[in-house]
């Protein structure tokens, strides 16, 4: 008869008589065992389990918050772009400065195109503010059929054509705190122009913008005869791919045809590396949370080793024991994940409200995001949190299940778990794989192998820690003090015992050190770069924001004529499209010194030698090198004035301002090729004896409307830039501090548990005549040795990881090169603080260990 068919009592009896395996496998027995294994842990180690749960919660919260912020931002951004693109099949785009409008006529007459809608895009500086609002100039009747979101909801249809009339989006109205019937004042050239707000645009895309008539926009912003883009709607039945290919062939250089989806994707890609980096940092916090679970579970399981041995002896199968302990970890992970998701969502909402969707990095200007909950992201992070917790439990559980039950029943057997040293092959193999991964190129523009290299290096080192500890401890001289000598004996005899504590220290220290070195290197390189890139005393911009302001030739002459200026150089900032599938590249036409034009730039590497007959020179940024494969001596064709012009790459320069690439050419060449003599910026060198304030007064006098001129000293720019840098990295610091706090809690938890597990030993030593102080000194020595080894290992590992961050991750993510800068003082302070915290932890643990009934612990057999 099957057990199911037996009466209750008979079934119970059969359990007793049956095989241990079948007994432990029955549901009732399984419940009892679950109660014994997991319930016991929950009851007796509530504090530690709560700590583990909180660590997972913190990691999940940070990861989920970053994901929600990113998804919200990208969703709003790309959704807005798609909404504004309406039903356009394609859009034709060129340089930011525009392309000849004659092209529109060609496109409009194309037999496959039903409607072509011309658009002028200008980021117009708002008078009285350092912000710009995007203004679209459209042909309302054409736009209505292709991009209705770019058409004003006019009560009087003629308002759509009248100059001086704009329609704004609801998001812009909220941002500007303006309504219909108000006046929007924008800067064009060096003058302010009032525009009457006639109403809102049709629909609400969540984007901030205004629309006006295309001809009026051309006149107002000096874009006569040019367009920024043309939106195209194909005739029904037209072969979209064939039409696209045909138009692409016919377009002039520097102008490309793409779908609105391509544009949204390109815009989204611009911030992707930044977003991925934030996600990786959040995952680092989750990883350290997993380490805390590992440390807690490892030591909790070691303490319960005889309990498990008893259960194994009574018939609990090995696999079931591992599953039960993994379930214990899963409970911690699920609880932590639920708390983490709730906290993460709240955190994301708060960040979006107070800091914006890009955390101050400047990628998503013009969006007004509403926080969105994505169940798939929530599921992924909950699964990650639970998975990390299960993994943290699984590894020590497997070790406990492998122990011989008879031996593990004896007190002190837990020492056996620490005495063995695993083969170093796995750790060495992972480190070698990490080294190889640093050589791999980016995947889809992301340094995935770089991240992988860091993870491999970290995990490989963690696996080698007992070996590293054994090597280091063997080389330490034996101290004269008995407690210190006994401490070293203990560590030498069980190098695996400190493995968990060491892992938490090494992970925390290495992550913090690597980021500290990377950030210090970046900051110092940025500072050096700013000094190099800002040689003048004062910089003047025609407008502090947008691209609607510029110095006309007359303005340039007037500015140059201001007394007290020893030297003046103008710059025209422009963008050009070098590839249809990439964002526009900045083109900076600068007044360069004739004798050494490249000397004005922070060059990286050797410049290409100039040869007679060479085309004019262009200096390309590191990002342009990475994105377009340019090198000194190469010839590159730049689309200027609707034609391709050949330039020779004269050198590579460092540019931290633009991650999509930047090109510098001589302004005289630019004017000769384009006829565009306007300038957006001016660099001024003061005459001897002239102060900045005096110069400002003279400029005010020369330019009655000079309130809109942005006049900044190089020092102010440098300070502002470094402040922006620090603000951008504040999030990084925040995530790192979270990781380090989790790591230190892990250290405290693991060391405390270690001490508790050794109470019998301390009881025996107290019997033999060791004072409480001597026991405390012994533990402090152990703590110092573990922390010292962990600190040195973490520093070395962190240094190696910083090299990967600098030369692989940053380079592949942002195309920024930087010089290595080790912040010795900060690292020394970090070391002292960490050692101090470790000592404080051990002293607290020692107090716990030597207090209470430690003497009676010698009677404990379990």
């Amino acid at each position, binding site marked *: 008869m099957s057990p199911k068919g037996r009466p209750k009592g008979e079934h119970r009896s059969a359990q007793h008589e049956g095989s241990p395996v079948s007994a432990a496998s029955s549901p009732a027995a399984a419940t009892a065992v679950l109660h014994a294994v997991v319930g016991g842990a929950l009851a007796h180690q509530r504090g530690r389990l709560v700590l583990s749960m909180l660590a997972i919660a913190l990691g999940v919260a940070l990861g989920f918050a970053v994901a929600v912020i990113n998804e919200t931002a990208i969703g709003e951004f790309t959704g807005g772009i798609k909404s504004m693109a309406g039903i356009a099949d394609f859009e034709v785009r060129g340089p930011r400065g525009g392309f000849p409008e004659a092209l529109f006529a060609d496109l409009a007459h194309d037999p496959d195109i039903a409607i072509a809608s011309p658009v002028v895009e200008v980021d117009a500086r708002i008078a009285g503010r350092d912000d710009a609002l995007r203004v679209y100039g459209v042909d309302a009747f054409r736009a209505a059929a292709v991009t209705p979101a770019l058409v004003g909801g006019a009560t009087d249809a003629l308002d759509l054509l009248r100059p001086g009339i704009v329609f704004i989006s609801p998001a812009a109205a909220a941002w500007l705190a303006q309504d219909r019937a108000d006046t929007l004042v924008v800067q064009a050239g060096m003058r302010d122009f009032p525009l009457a707000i006639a109403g809102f645009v049709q629909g609400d895309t969540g984007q901030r913008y205004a629309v006006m008539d295309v001809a009026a926009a051309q006149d107002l912003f000096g874009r006569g005869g040019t367009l920024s883009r043309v939106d195209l709607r194909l005739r029904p039945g037209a072969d979209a791919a064939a039409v696209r290919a045909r138009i692409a062939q016919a377009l002039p250089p520097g102008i490309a045809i793409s779908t609105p989806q391509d544009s949204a994707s390109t815009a989204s890609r611009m911030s992707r590396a930044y977003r991925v980096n934030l996600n990786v940092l959040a995952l680092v916090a989750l990883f350290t949370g997993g380490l805390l679970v590992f440390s807690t579970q490892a030591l909790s399981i070691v303490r319960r080793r005889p309990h498990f041995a008893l259960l194994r002896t009574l018939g609990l199968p090995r696999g079931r024991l591992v599953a039960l302990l993994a379930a214990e970890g899963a409970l911690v992970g699920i609880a932590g994940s639920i708390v983490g998701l709730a906290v993460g969502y709240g955190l994301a909402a708060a960040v979006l409200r107070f800091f914006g969707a890009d955390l101050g990095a400047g990628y998503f200007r013009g969006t007004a995001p509403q926080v969105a909950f994505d169940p798939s992201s929530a599921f992924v992070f909950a699964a990650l949190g639970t998975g990390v917790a299960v993994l943290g439990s699984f590894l020590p559980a497997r070790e406990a299940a492998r122990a011989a039950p008879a031996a593990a029943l004896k*007190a*002190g057997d837990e*020492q*056996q778990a620490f*005495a063995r040293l695993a083969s170093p092959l796995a750790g060495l193999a992972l480190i070698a794989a990490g080294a190889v991964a640093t050589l791999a190129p980016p995947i889809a523009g992301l340094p995935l192998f770089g991240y992988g290299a860091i993870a491999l290096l970290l995990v490989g080192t963690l696996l080698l820690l007992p070996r590293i500890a054994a090597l280091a401890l063997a080389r330490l001289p034996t101290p004269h003090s*008995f407690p210190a*000598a*006994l401490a070293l*004996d*203990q560590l*030498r*005899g*069980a190098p695996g015992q400190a493995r968990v504590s060491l892992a938490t220290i090494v992970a925390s220290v290495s992550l913090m050190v690597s980021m500290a070195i990377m950030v210090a290197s970046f900051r110092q390189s940025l500072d050096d770069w700013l000094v190099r890139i800002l040689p003048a005393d004062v910089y003047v911009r025609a407008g502090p924001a947008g691209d609607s302001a510029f110095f006309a030739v007359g303005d340039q002459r007037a500015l140059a004529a201001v007394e007290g200026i020893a030297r003046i150089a103008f710059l025209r900032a422009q963008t050009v499209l070098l590839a249809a599938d990439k964002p526009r590249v900045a083109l900076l036409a600068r007044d360069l010194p004739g004798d050494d034009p490249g000397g004005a730039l922070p060059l990286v590497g050797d410049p290409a030698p100039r040869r007679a007959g060479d085309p004019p020179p262009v200096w390309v940024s590191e990002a342009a090198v990475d994105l377009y494969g340019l090198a000194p001596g190469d010839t590159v064709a730049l689309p200027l004035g609707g034609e391709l012009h050949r330039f020779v790459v004269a050198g590579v320069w460092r540019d931290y301002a633009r991650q999509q690439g930047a090109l510098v050419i001589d302004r005289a060449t630019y004017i000769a090729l384009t006829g565009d003599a306007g300038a957006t910026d001016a660099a001024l060198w003061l005459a001897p004896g002239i102060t900045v304030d005096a110069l400002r007064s003279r400029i005010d006098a020369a330019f009655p409307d000079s309130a809109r001129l942005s006049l900044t000293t190089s020092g102010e720019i440098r300070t502002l830039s470094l402040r922006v840098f620090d603000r951008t990295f504040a999030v990084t610091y925040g995530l790192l501090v979270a990781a380090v706090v989790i790591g230190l809690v892990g250290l405290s938890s693991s060391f405390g548990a270690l001490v508790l597990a050794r109470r*019998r*030993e301390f*009881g*025996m030593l*107290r*019997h*033999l*005549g*060791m*004072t*409480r102080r001597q026991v405390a000194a012994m533990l402090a020595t152990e703590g110092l040795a573990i922390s010292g080894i962990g600190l040195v290992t973490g520093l070395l590992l962190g240094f190696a990881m910083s090299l990967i961050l600098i030369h692989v991750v940053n380079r592949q993510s942002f195309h920024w090169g930087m010089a290595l800068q080790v912040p010795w003082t900060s690292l020394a302070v970090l070391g002292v603080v960490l050692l101090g915290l470790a000592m404080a932890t051990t002293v607290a643990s020692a107090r716990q260990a030597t207090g209470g009934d430690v*003497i009676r612990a*010698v*009677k404990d*057999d379990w």
Partner: protein
Amino acid sequence: MIRLTDVTKTFAGPRPRTVLDRLSLDVPRGQLAAILGESGAGKSTLLNVIAGLETADTGTVVVGNVDLAGLDDDARTAFRRAHVGFVFQAFHVLPYLSVGDNVALPLRLAGRRDRAAAERVDTMLAAVGLADRAASMPRELSGGELQRIAIARALVHRPQVVLADEPTGNLDPDSAHAVITLLRNCLHAEGATGILVTHSHAAAARADRVLTLTRDGLVETTLP
């Protein structure tokens, strides 16, 4: 010698429990006294009071010529270090030290790392029959051998008193007999006074004198 006079020990708590009630005991120098008694009778507490690990609420405890009541915790610890040896039921041999280093623990605690100390360790290892195992690690030894290490460790610093708490509790009868005989012989050889707390009549029978701890105090007992 060990002399306890009217010693009382009560453990505080919601239900205070008097474990030792006006207990007196006199063990002359060089004698091994076995103490039998039921579980919970207070045998281990009695050992802890003699060792200075716990203080008596009333009465006097004199070990050698020292009245433990007059010592603070540090002084009692120093006294224990110099004059008391312990043998535990669970051996409590440090797994990360070699056999020799385990035996040398009390000498190292006393700051002795000289040649004489090393020779003394060798002597004790020879006395317990483990002369060739000095470099071995505890995990390589049997339970009986581990307890022999504990006996060597208890006597290596020539204590006045050795306190053994169920030293044969984890051993088979043959090993138990061998260990208790060894303990007695070593104690006699070193001239130390010993207290053996045990449930085992066979072990107690090897002692010079047997007492039973009852609610009425210690009662001299004659084993068949």
